[in-house]
């Protein structure tokens, strides 16, 4: 039966996250963007909500909740509404946890998951993007060759939390295949570069990786001999990022809408002019449109169906949408949107990242 209302359980999760986003994230996000640091208590506070590790099966120490991309989409939107950099930091461990839970071997689960069920945030992550303008996930430049174990070679960038991560799931090309490899901290041949300086998500610590004949054990190929389902991981990532784009866009819409009702020009609120009001209407329509596309893709993934087309459409739509909407957010506020006293310029900078962000979040 067609429906657009989240379940009671989903509503509860959304409300909890919304509360956290409002009370905690929104209080500090500007400071964090300026300083480039996110206070540990925010990250630990989010960790305690159990959003990330809850999908780990009970036998490995987790809550054993059934994974749902749709629920993940809902909470990712709320977190990103709070702040995108924090949201990506908070959800970064999912980049490694979810693939292992869904596709890892028993040994991999046993080895890596229990350590991620503690009370404190533990950094693990994945390396997906590569530093080229024509980066194409269908043809990773990073390669994995079989030599007893595996030997990885290549460059990665935009790897969240790489410096402090216990292990990193590295995406690479193995022959014609795309597979993931678990690279532990300190592995020989793994070099983690300086922290990257980007236009937006400045509070999120991201790094370049250099893999030079990095040797890992044969057992560290995700899923063992069976390998992983790359398309599914890519689609779960597209849904996560599209949801985050919706969250960022909604933040900008709400803020500029409220501003436009307060700000007076020519003796009336600027929102009383169609030039402004129509921008706001378009923003709201586009946010909803992108959300519905994203939900549909997530729903399909939850049914374990191939959702490549839906996820790609949702992601590309959301990429365009968030840029347009956050641009309008700045435009509605004029000069006040351009100064850093107000948040819309931050959302505008963050929005530009989405076309680049691939594989940087997963739900």
């Amino acid at each position, binding site marked *: 039966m067609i429906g657009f209302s989240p379940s009671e359980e989903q509503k509860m999760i959304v409300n909890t996250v919304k509360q956290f986003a409002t009370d905690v994230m929104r209080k500090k996000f500007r400071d964090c963007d300026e300083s480039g640091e996110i206070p540990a208590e925010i990250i630990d506070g989010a960790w305690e909500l159990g959003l990330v590790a809850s999908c780990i099966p009970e036998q490995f120490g987790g809550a054993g909740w059934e994974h749902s991309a749709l629920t993940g989409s809902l909470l990712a939107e709320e977190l990103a509404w709070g702040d995108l950099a924090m949201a990506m930091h908070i959800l970064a461990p999912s980049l490694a946890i979810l693939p292992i839970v869904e596709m890892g071997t028993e040994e991999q689960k046993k080895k890596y998951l229990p350590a991620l069920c503690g009370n404190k945030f533990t950094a693990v992550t994945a390396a997906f993007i590569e530093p080229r303008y024509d980066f194409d996930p269908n043809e990773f430049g990073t390669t994995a060759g079989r030599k007893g174990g595996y030997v990885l070679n290549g460059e990665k960038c935009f790897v969240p939390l790489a410096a402090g991560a216990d292990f990193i799931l590295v995406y690479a090309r193995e022959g014609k295949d795309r597979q993931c490899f678990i690279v532990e901290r300190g592995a020989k041949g793994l070099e983690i570069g300086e922290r990257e300086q980007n236009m937006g998500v400045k509070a999120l610590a991201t790094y370049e990786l250099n893999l030079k004949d990095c040797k890992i054990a044969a057992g560290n190929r995700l899923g063992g001999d069976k390998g992983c389902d790359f398309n599914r991981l890519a689609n779960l990532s597209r849904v996560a990022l599209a949801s985050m784009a919706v969250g960022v866009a909604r933040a900008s819409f709400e803020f500029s809408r409220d501003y436009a009702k307060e700000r007076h020009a020519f003796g009336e609120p600027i929102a009383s002019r169609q030039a402004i009001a129509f921008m706001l209407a378009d923003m709201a329509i586009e946010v909803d449109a992108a959300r*519905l596309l994203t939900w549909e893709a997530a729903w399909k993934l939850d049914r374990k169906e191939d959702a490549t087309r839906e996820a790609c459409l949702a992601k590309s739509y959301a990429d365009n949408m968030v840029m347009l909407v956050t641009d309008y957010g700045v435009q509605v506020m004029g000069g006040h949107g351009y100064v850093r006293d107000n948040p819309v310029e931050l959302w505008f900078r963050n929005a530009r990242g989405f076309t680049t962000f691939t594989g940087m979040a997963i739900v």
Partner: protein
Amino acid sequence: MIDFELSAEDKAKVAEAHDIAQNLFRPISRYYDEHEHEDPWDLIDTMWEMRGKGFLTGLGITGALMVEELCWGDAGLYLASPGPGLGGAAVFAAGTQEQWGRFLARYGQGKPKWGAMAMTEPGCGSDTSAIQATAVRDGDYWVLNGEKIFVTMGHRALDLSEGIIVVWATVDKSAGRAGMKSFVVEAGTPGMKVEKLEKKLGIKASDTATVIFENCRIPFNNILGKAEIKTKTEGFKGAMATFDVTRPLVAAQALGVTRAALDMLRDELTKRGIKVRYDVPRSKQTAIERDFMEMESNWRAAHLLVIRAMWQLQGGTPNALEASMAKAKAGRAATLITQRAVELMGPLGYSRKLLFEKFMRDAKINDIFEGTGQINTLVVARRLLDFTRDQLK
């Protein structure tokens, strides 16, 4: 629950609508585009027979999806198909049970009939509060006077069948919007005549009529809603309730035409060995692939907005905001996507040999009737801002 799955029964209904669109509409699509004002009687009779068996008699999500399928076949022929149409939707939205029986029962029996709604006048379109047509009470009757234009299916409802027309008129000009009421007039009522059929850019298989009312007397209880003028907005609510149903339906029409263009474009590209690669980065996609993805995602987004508005309607949730969102988005998407399809096909798109140019002409009306894109955007903006029409003009 968030769910996108239609029941097996509803899927079958939508599939049936698609079959009809493909097998009955498409083969005669071009003919009736080139022979404006001819009546496709074979199709009319078939569609009427289908209606008798329950085809497309319900609204809601499934109804909208079926409308999308039929308009995938041909938007003009869909409008030309007999049934209560927008007039019926108005009676359904604002009428009493007694009125449903009296005015709508005819659409399940006898010869083919159409229904129409008359709102627009020579001097007013979007600003329906400026309606000049009058309804004056005379004992047990109302006496209607005025001129209505752009009445979709007015000719077939009133001249070719024993249909109904819902007419908007003011019972008190000094009361403004509050004095606006809607009235049902049955075909054959003295004092009502169809005067002119418009020649149009597209949807040529549908008729668009001018209807004149000269001392047209109708029974008192043909008024939809209450006769008294109550609050400032009361009288207008009937019209607005109608839009809650009709806007998503018109949006569904738009999306049918749009998908027709998309499907045909995909077929033409496939013939030339071009397959859209959804999962390659933009830097590696061709311009056509990028365009196609943008077009398809816009169609799909509008499609989901329509389904959401219909889902709200089915569940009894207020949907005026979402209905206008869906209509604004779908009208614009249809217009832009069908234009782009013509562009991408080059001379093959512009030529009347294929249907691309027709899709573009047919699509455009959807950004105009049942509220222009601008009016729907205005409705959305007012609701988002919680502004009255005085606060946001």
